[in-house]
C-alpha cells in the first residue's frame, strides 16, 4: 500500500516535471531586458525585489540584467506589514534594455527610472 502510494506520488511528480518542461520549452516570443541597479552598492543586495510576482535572486555587486518578455512589468518590494508594494512599472521592448535604479535604503525601496515615458500612458513608467 505504502509502496503503491509512493509510486503514484512519484508518477504525479514526474507529470508535473513534464508539464513544467513543456511550458518552459514553448516559443518564448519577443523578449527584451530589464537592468536593475541597486544603491548603495553592496556585494550582495538582500532586499527582496519582485518582477510582477517573481522574487528576484539577491543582486550581486549592485547590478543585474534579466531577460523578460515584451510588455509592462511591475517592480515590487516588501512594504509594511508583509505586503508587496509597487515601486514602479517597467516597459520592456524587443531587444532593448530598460534600466532602473533602486534605492534599497528606503522603506519601501524607491525606484528611479533612467528614462521615463514621454506620453501619458508611460509617464510614470521606466522605458528604454
Amino acid at each position: 500500500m505504502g509502496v503503491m502510494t509512493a509510486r503514484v506520488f512519484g508518477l504525479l511528480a514526474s507529470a508535473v516535471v513534464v508539464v513544467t518542461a513543456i511550458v518552459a520549452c514553448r516559443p518564448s516570443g519577443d523578449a527584451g531586458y530589464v537592468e536593475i541597479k541597486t544603491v548603495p552598492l553592496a556585494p550582495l543586495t538582500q532586499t527582496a525585489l519582485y518582477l510582477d510576482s517573481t522574487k528576484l535572486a539577491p543582486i550581486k555587486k549592485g547590478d543585474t540584467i534579466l531577460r523578460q518578455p515584451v510588455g509592462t512589468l511591475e517592480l515590487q518590494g516588501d512594504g509594511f506589514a508583509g505586503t508587496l508594494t509597487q515601486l514602479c512599472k517597467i516597459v520592456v521592448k524587443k531587444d532593448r534594455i530598460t534600466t532602473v535604479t533602486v534605492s534599497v535604503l528606503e522603506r519601501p525601496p524607491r525606484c528611479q527610472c533612467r528614462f521615463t515615458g514621454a506620453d501619458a500612458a508611460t509617464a510614470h513608467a521606466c522605458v528604454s
Partner: protein
Amino acid sequence: MLRSLQVVFARLPFATAALVAAALALSGSFARAQDSSGAASPVDEFSQQLEDFQKSVPDLNKKIQESATTIDATTDVAKARAEIDRLRDEVSTLLGAVADNGPVSQLGVKALDHIHQKLKALSADTRFKPEERQYLIGQWQQLETQTVAADKELDDARAQFVSLLQTLQQNEDFIGELLEIRQAERALEVIRSLTQNIRDASNQLNKLIGGIKPPGA
C-alpha cells in the same frame, strides 16, 4: 486515499495519460543520465555550455564586422537602420544566454552551489584517509577557483554586451529622431561614427569571451 487517486486517474483525459507516459519515459532517461554523469555534472554542464557559448561568439563577431562594413558602404539610411536593427537582434540573442536569468549564468550558479556542497560534504566525510580527503578537497577547491574566475569573466562579457546593446539602441533612437526632421545627412554621419564603436566593442567582446577558461578545461 489510493482509491480516490484511482478514481481521479480513471477520469483523466487521454492527453494527461499521454503526459504521464511521457513522464515515465523521461524520468527513466533522467535517472540514467544522472547515473552515468557522476558527481561533477553541474560543473561539467556549465563548462560545456560555456564552451558552446564561446564557439558562437566568433560567428557573432564576423556578423558584426560584416554589418559594420555594409553600414559604412551604404548611403541608404533605411538600409543602414535595418542593419543596425539586425545587429541588435543578434547581440540581444547572445545576451540572453549570459543574462542573470539566462542558461549559462544559471548553470554557473548551479555549478558553484554544487562545488560548495561537495566541499562541505567532503570536510565531514570519514570514508577516506586524511591525505585522500585532502587531495579531493584540493581538487574541488581548484574547480571552485576556476568556476569563480569563469563567472567573473562572464560578468565582464555581460557588461560588454549590455554596453553594446545600449549603444545600438541609443544611436538608433537618435537616428530615428534625425530622420523625422529630415536630417538624413546628419543621420548618416551618426551611423558612420557608430560603426567604429561597434567594431571596437566587437573586438573587445571577442577577446573577453575567447579568454574565458571553462572550469576543469
